[in-house]
């Protein structure tokens, strides 16, 4: 990969501080929703702004900084979650649910919403990154399909179909995870 020559890079981004002040809350919250804890969200925040700091001087200007940072945060958070799980990604067309956890948990535990939240975060980390990003933006961040399509350079129809298939798959996985408790 290309590595920035930090010795010869342009002077420190003059707008970095302003950018950080204006958007750090947005980045942290997006990261927090996906990682589920403040320490990881802090790591994500650092990663996102460190990458902004290291942008090439001639890089294309960012049209919508808030959206860009928001998406960066989602992706960095998903990256982190994937690293923590250290698992392979499941391609989009692989429809069979994959058990991430042993089945037959007790109904009491399975019904605990906190546990399902953690399971959902783990399931997202196992998804194809592009699908996981799409799902997170739609359901965690509340963006609508046209905006997601614009951000991800695709069509709203593709977004809708992808999200529908993903939802179905997650529901199957959840049922398998519940081990009959469903």
């Amino acid at each position, binding site marked *: 990969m290309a*590595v920035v020559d930090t*010795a010869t890079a342009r002077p420190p981004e003059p707008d970095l501080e302003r950018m950080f002040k204006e958007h*750090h809350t947005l980045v942290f919250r997006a990261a927090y*929703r996906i990682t*589920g804890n403040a320490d990881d969200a802090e790591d994500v925040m*650092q990663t996102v702004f460190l990458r902004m700091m290291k942008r090439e001087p001639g890089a294309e200007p960012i049209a919508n900084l808030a959206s860009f940072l928001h998406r960066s945060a989602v992706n960095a958070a998903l990256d982190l979650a994937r690293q923590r799980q250290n698992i392979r990604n499941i391609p989009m067309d692989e429809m069979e649910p994959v058990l991430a956890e042993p089945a037959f948990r007790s109904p009491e535990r399975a019904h605990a919403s906190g546990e399902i939240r953690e399971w*959902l*975060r783990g399931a997202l980390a196992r998804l194809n990154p592009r699908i996981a990003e799409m799902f997170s933006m739609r359901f965690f961040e509340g963006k609508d399909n046209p905006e997601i399509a614009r951000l991800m350079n695709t069509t709203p129809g593709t977004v809708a179909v992808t999200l529908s298939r993903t*939802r179905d798959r997650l529901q199957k996985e959840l049922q398998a995870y*519940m081990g009959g408790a469903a």
Partner: protein
Amino acid sequence: MNLESFEPMDPRLEQAVTEIHNDEPDTATIEAAAERVWARLAAAQHEGHEHIRGCDDFQALIPEYRAGRLPIARATLLKDHLHECVACRRVYEGRVVAMPVASQTRKASNTVRWATAAGVLLAAGLTVWFAMDQYGGRSGRAFIQAVNGTVYEVTADGNLRPLASGQDLPDGGEIRTAKDSDAMVQLRDGSVVELRERSGFSTVASANDLTIRLNRGSIIVQAAKRRTGHLYVATTDCRVAVTGTVFSVVSGVKGSRVSVVEGEVHVAQNNQDHVLHPGDQMATSLAIEPGTVRDDVAWSRNKDKLGQQLDKLRVSLQQVPLPAMRYSSKLLDRLPAETVVYGSIPNLGPYLAQTQALFGQNLAQSPELRAFWSTKGGDIDRTVEKLRAASEYLGDEIVMLGFAGENGQMDGMAFLAETKRDGFAEFLKKELPGAAVEMRPGLVAFGPHAASVARLASALDKPAGGFQGTPFYARIAEAYRNGAGMMLAADLSQMHNPQAEAQGVRYFLAEQKEVNKEMELRATVGFAGERPGIAGWLGAPAAMGSLDYVSPEATLVTGFVVKDPKAIVDQLSTVGGNFVGRGEGPANGVALTKELAASLGGEFSLSFDGPIFPPSWKLICEVYDPVAAQAALQHVVEAFNAELVKNGKKPLRTATETAEGRTYYMIAGADPNPITEAHYTFADGYLIAGPTRALISKALQTKMAGTSITRSSTFLALEPRDHYANYSALIYENLGKTLAPFAGLIGSFVPPQARGGGRGGPDPLAAISDMKPLLIGAYAEGDTITVAANGNMLAKGMSNMLGGNLLGVIGSAMPMGQMQGARRR
């Protein structure tokens, strides 16, 4: 959230999605995180101007990052780079060997190679044997086999979790040893890894291979035989591939070093593969000098297996009870009046028999001990056997006697004992043909000097030997009443010893006995009339409040109760004269001394209680009148200064300062120098003096907190047990703790062959490091002074006694000769 365009979602999934969507961290958490992140970003921005030009530069930072020494800004940059660069992340994870600057592989010469190979054979053999013997082969389970000290897991969240012996190892986690700790770890494939102190590794399993990722420190690996796959050891700059070998790997800041003890290993570095054989060594950096394989495995716990066996034997032997104490003696009343030396030992037959049996068991179980004993044991076995055989003829006690001869010289030694069965004379003549033996009904007198034996025998022919009624007899009888173990007494007044006569010493009595499985040592010196000289300064045992100001960390402590404070002042005057380097006293010194002495109580202590430099001396004096004492000290200083000025020299500096309601005084040499400063204050009837005010404050805090040395477990464990509640004087040392680092430092500059005088003698530096705490108490009463300590000097004392080495016995009986320390309780 608008979900209308979808089919209804599973309610549980919808609930989870909604909860995550609404999961909002509080503002304070966000802002605190933002503050930290911005600080790191700002630092990284600044750091970014320094040269990190690409992956090579980032990879060069990895060792420092692993060691936790990378500045936070650079660590931030590296961490981020590892997130986004797969190539560097693989290097960091040890899956790919980095390509550092080309370095020359070094190998030891053939001679050194084979010499070191031979040298480590024992350690290697012991390692293999020990591991196989103790832990068996592979179990499919990774666990901690043994821990000496502390070993812990570095968890994913960066916390440390202590691990215990027998505990299973977590997958993927780093195992790390603390300082002064080591551990034996068995991996899933049956390989055994021994970790040195401050070492850490983790393991990664893939397919049939297992990789030990050595993050820091040193390990010795005994690789299990494998049918498939390899065991790898990866450091930051090399990778070692092995099957069924024993080798060590050291990974440090400068690079790595691999030493092979057994088998063959392949070391990959800089895209080159090096094959090493037993005795071979390879360093990955020119900055690492080749050492010896022996040195690289010298820290192994198995190297010391012999030492451990000997320690085990020593502990076992200590469990063998000595004969019970004797409270009277049938032999004492039969001695002649001219007896001037009296030694008494219990019949050690049963003790020797048990010891012999126990020793035999240990030899049978330990090939190392057998080998050691076959070369070092010499004639000890035969000697012990003779003693044991002789003891079967004799009663419970054997006494050794010396008689006053002409011109005050002592005649040869003779021995006296009761007999349990006939045949001792024949036995002795057979074993010691030159020995004289005289048998009497129920008694036997024997020894190397026929005249002495005859003299003893003639006394035995009388109903009473004439010894009864002498003051010397009375002292010995008193010792019996308190319980006797081993005893040696000498009537010095009858031996015309000029030194003893000059000191007014009349008799000496040393005892060693076992009480509650602990050895006690006690020596008493009796004087003719008043105790003279320094012995006369000591007062009767009394409470020592001055010790309340001494902390448990003190390395040397002395405390005294004196009859006459003037004696202290005289001593201090001398020290004061030397202190200013003049040795001159004021003309009215005697008057000033009396003035100062009048204000002092009868107790003081001098200790070293803190850092070695500047010397943390601490003087505590009991003071009955602080105002008068300060006035007297001021007069002393003024008188000294007048004298110094008269001689054209600079006067002492003095100062007074009040802090927190307490007045501190300072007396110092003319030129500022921390060594020549003395600070002091008065509190609770004591003068507390030291080189700094901080030390005095600490002393006051120690007193206030009630955490003085007299409350410390180390001190309490060393106190001799007797009927005295107080001491007249005491000396406590814990110098080993302080001096060991210095001895180690000095030792690192002294070649091993140069220690012990180059003759293979004892290493004085090692002896310093091994010094154990010691407490000697003294009790002054009337015309006697008794010193007491806990210790086990039976072997040495018995050896001297049986050899007739009186001075040796006295020397071993005096606790000051036992600075190696007493057995801990």
